């Protein structure tokens, strides 16, 4: 659980300004939803926190220190797709996190150390409800189960911050609401800081303790690329008045099928 500080971050690709003047402070334990129109730079923003891309200007500080210029185990991630390794079984997908940390040359754990790590993996799989599927390959899992596996993988590293890039975008409504329950539960029990990019406004308000919208407040019709998106709304969801109006969790959609 860590705090994240974004100081005057800009992102430009050549003459094209994607993001400008992003200032944001996320206290430890926040669950922030990022929403905004397509192409407004939400995912670019997430990639900069991840270290996959670098800001053109400004700083991103995790617990007061600039984040490394590449992805690392302190920042976990779940993408919309392709987050899990197709060549490893479910439990091996979780185990690999332990193996990479413990065996720097072979990347494989053997003997007692492996048994101990497997014990922890089983506990993680139980948390996300995949215990029965431990020995299957990801291709035999449904989309929702693959995403749960990706979450378990990320939890294995106990990251300071968990980044979710439209994690439930490809799921059907019933599975989606189950995943919401799961993520909310994991967030509470593991005391994590979470940043989630989503297209689903309802999801953003349901899960987040804070909803942030990105948009382009300024536009030059002759040079549309010269103004980037920035934070246009920053809505705290733990405000008592807003909380009173916070939508109730939807009934399980599987009832209607």
């Amino acid at each position, binding site marked *: 659980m860590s705090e994240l500080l974004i100081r005057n971050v800009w992102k430009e690709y050549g003459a094209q300004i994607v993001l400008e003047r992003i200032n944001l402070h996320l206290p430890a334990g926040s669950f922030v939803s990022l929403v905004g129109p397509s192409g407004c730079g939400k995912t670019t923003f997430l990639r900069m926190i991840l270290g996959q891309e670098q800001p053109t200007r400004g700083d991103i500080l995790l617990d007061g220190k600039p984040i490394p210029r590449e992805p690392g185990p302190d920042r976990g991630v779940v993408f919309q797709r*392709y987050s899990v390794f197709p060549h490893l079984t479910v439990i091996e997908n979780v185990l690999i996190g332990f193996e*990479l940390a413990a065996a720097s040359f072979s990347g494989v754990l053997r003997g007692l150390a492996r048994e101990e790590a497997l014990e922890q993996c089983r506990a993680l799989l139980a948390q996300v409800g995949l215990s029965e599927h431990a020995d299957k390959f990801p291709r035999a899992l449904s989309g929702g189960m693959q995403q749960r596996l990706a979450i378990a993988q990320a939890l294995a590293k106990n990251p300071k911050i968990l980044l979710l890039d439209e994690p439930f975008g490809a799921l059907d409504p019933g599975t989606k609401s189950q995943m919401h329950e799961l993520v909310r539960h994991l967030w509470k029990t593991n005391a994590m800081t979470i940043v989630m990019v989503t297209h689903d406004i309802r999801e953003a308000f349901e899960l987040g303790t804070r909803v942030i919208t990105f948009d382009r407040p300024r536009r030059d019709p002759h040079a549309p690329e010269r103004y980037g998106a920035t934070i246009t709304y920053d809505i705290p969801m733990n405000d008592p008045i807003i909380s009173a109006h916070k939508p109730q969790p939807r009934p399980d959609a599987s009832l209607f099928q």
Partner: protein
Amino acid sequence: MRRIMNVNPDRVTKLVLGLAPIGLVILLYVMMSHERLLLNPADKLMPSLASMGDAIVRYAFTADARTGDVLLWKDTGASLIRLFQGLAISVCAALAVGLLLGVIPLIRAGFAPLISIVSVVPPMALLPILFIIFGLGEVSKIALIVIGLAPFLMRDLTHHVQSIPVEQFIKAQTLGASTWQYIVRVALPQTLPKLIQSTRLSLGPAWLFLISAEAIAAESGLGYRIFLVRRYLAMDVIIPYVIWITLIAFISDLLLGALSRKLYPWAHDEEPST
């Protein structure tokens, strides 16, 4: 009436449809050979099945009077050893180069242009150079196979390694993977089934280069024998040899496919057996 493109054959129909053209080709050959032999019993161009049978007995089951070797097996052994050595060297080199180029952008920037250029050099044009450098022995034949296959396999595998989704590349790093660990735990295992696939596709060219090299300078080998007996228009030997080579190539392709399905069930379309 359904559209013809919607009509799928069942198992039996598929088998019959598949075997029919093969049977037809054999039948056509037998008829034409029979016609020619009626006109001229000494005709060599289309020998009867019986004379091919005689040739098979002579070459596959009788020791050669001069050397005491059974020629078909000696030739098969010589060719397969060359083929296997050439393939093994090409595949190992391609795997190492493909992983390094696919994963590390600096190495890719350095070597990808060279490999692209080398892979379009026609290998047969290099054969004289190989003979000059390595002599007429085994090395130049194996070298021809390697030169023919390795650059193609290197490009192919580099491409496969690069096409692993970027999500997995990032995910592995968030799980703590170093460059080396990404190579051995993510890139390598996902490349191996592709390697088998590419090797299957390379079998044809590998045989092409092998037989070419044997035809020009060798003392044994399937290609050598075919080109040797060509001098006597010995079609009764050439045809069984060609069928034998085809059979070996066909079976090695099937074996590689089965190996891949057994070792890498996750990479194939069928449901994995878990």
